[in-house]
């Protein structure tokens, strides 16, 4: 006999649990992530190591990931919870890169060649993209205009500010 399935387990939670398990078992180097509270799979905390040979090297940067109820149809938002001076990070810590936007839902329409959100992306792919964003800012799609200017015009000053933030994340 046919029965409606309206009460079935939420797709988003099932998918987030699967991704969490995979990240525990085989997290890429320099990245860790998981729910802040295992009763709420929609709020995660993650830690990202600063990539080597960049001014971020040595730092460990905490951020939150907030997932929408229809994840993975829509992307999460990501926000650094530490001081972060970077062209593609808003002053409030919100990360602005293409993989966190669906096509057509992108405040920086001109970052044309980069990958957008779709339901087959994942937390792991986001965090890997954020690591490469730290290493290589995209100054065509600036979220922090001051950081863009300093990065473009005064690289020594940019490196100094970033390194000061690195020391802060380490509690120095």
């Amino acid at each position, binding site marked *: *006999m*046919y*029965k*409606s*399935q*309206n009460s*079935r387990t*939420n*797709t988003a939670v*099932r*998918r987030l649990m*699967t*991704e969490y398990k*995979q990240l525990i078992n085989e997290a890429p180097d320099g990245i860790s992530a998981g729910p802040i509270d295992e009763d709420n799979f929609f709020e995660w905390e993650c830690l990202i190591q600063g990539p080597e040979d960049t001014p971020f090297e040595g730092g460990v940067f905490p951020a939150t990931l907030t997932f929408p109820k*229809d994840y993975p*149809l*829509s992307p999460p938002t990501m926000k650094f919870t530490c001081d972060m001076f970077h062209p593609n990070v*808003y002053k409030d810590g*919100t990360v*602005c890169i293409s993989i966190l936007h*669906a*096509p*057509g*839902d*992108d*405040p*920086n329409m001109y970052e044309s*060649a980069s*990958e*957008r*959100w*779709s*339901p*087959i*992306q*994942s937390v792991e792919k986001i965090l890997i993209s954020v690591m490469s964003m730290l290493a290589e800012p995209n100054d065509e799609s600036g979220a922090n205009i001051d950081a863009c200017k300093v990065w473009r015009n005064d690289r020594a000053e940019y490196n100094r500010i970033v390194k000061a933030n690195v020391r802060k994340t380490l509690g120095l």
Partner: protein
Amino acid sequence: MGHEAEIPSVTAEHDQDQLDDLTILRLTQEIKDVEASKNPLVGDFRPLSVLLDEYKDATFRGKIKCQALGGGNAGYRPVRGDGNCAWRAFAFRYFELLSRLSKEEIEISTKSLQSRTRLLDAAGYSETGYIDFVEETFNLLQKLPDMTQEQLVTEFNNAEVSSAIIVHFRLLAAAYIKTHADDYIPFIDDGEGADISEYCNRNIEAFSVEADHLALSALVNSMLIVHLGVVYMDRSAGEEAVIHDFVPAESASEVALPSLKIELLYRPGHYDIFYK
């Protein structure tokens, strides 16, 4: 879908001079969502005369074509205009046509679709990425022989169910393009080279992005047993609606497989299901 939200008010929450790009995007999306949510994901069958009434004061050329189509029992089933309309219309009609077949025919069609999952692997998608969507399709196919039409409409108006099926079908279409790149590159190449992955990422894999001609062609090719006709009720010259046919490039090897004929009614920017 009775959850009507209020149109978000900008002035109540935000100082208009202070709106940043992200906030503007969010508010725009909220307005679109509220508008879209006024219509069910999949509506009830209506005679074409209802559609003609919508245009009774308009000079829209497509009206003439609609009149030409309007004889007999022709009708349509409206689908929500949320960027997934062609996909949702196709998916609903696929299930509806299958539901009229015998249990054995549904089973053999289900097996045929299951065999196409190998396209997803061949295209390099991870099973974690696609499995939840694919399972939703097969859950519904399994229940299909015992379902009434009304229950099928109810299932499709459950966003979790029909959205998952849409993602499954989107991935099949994208996987077909990725695994038959030579056939598609000439249509994707913009003179500066063609990036198949980027095209699929932007135009097919992402949810809520309208289907284009290539997407529909790839979808039909990926499914094997569906012939698709798109009835164009547009502004082009002529008084008869043009019908674009999409026929699968390869046919199914199993002779016993049923063949389904899906027709969609296209008005500029939107697809509904067409019945004649």
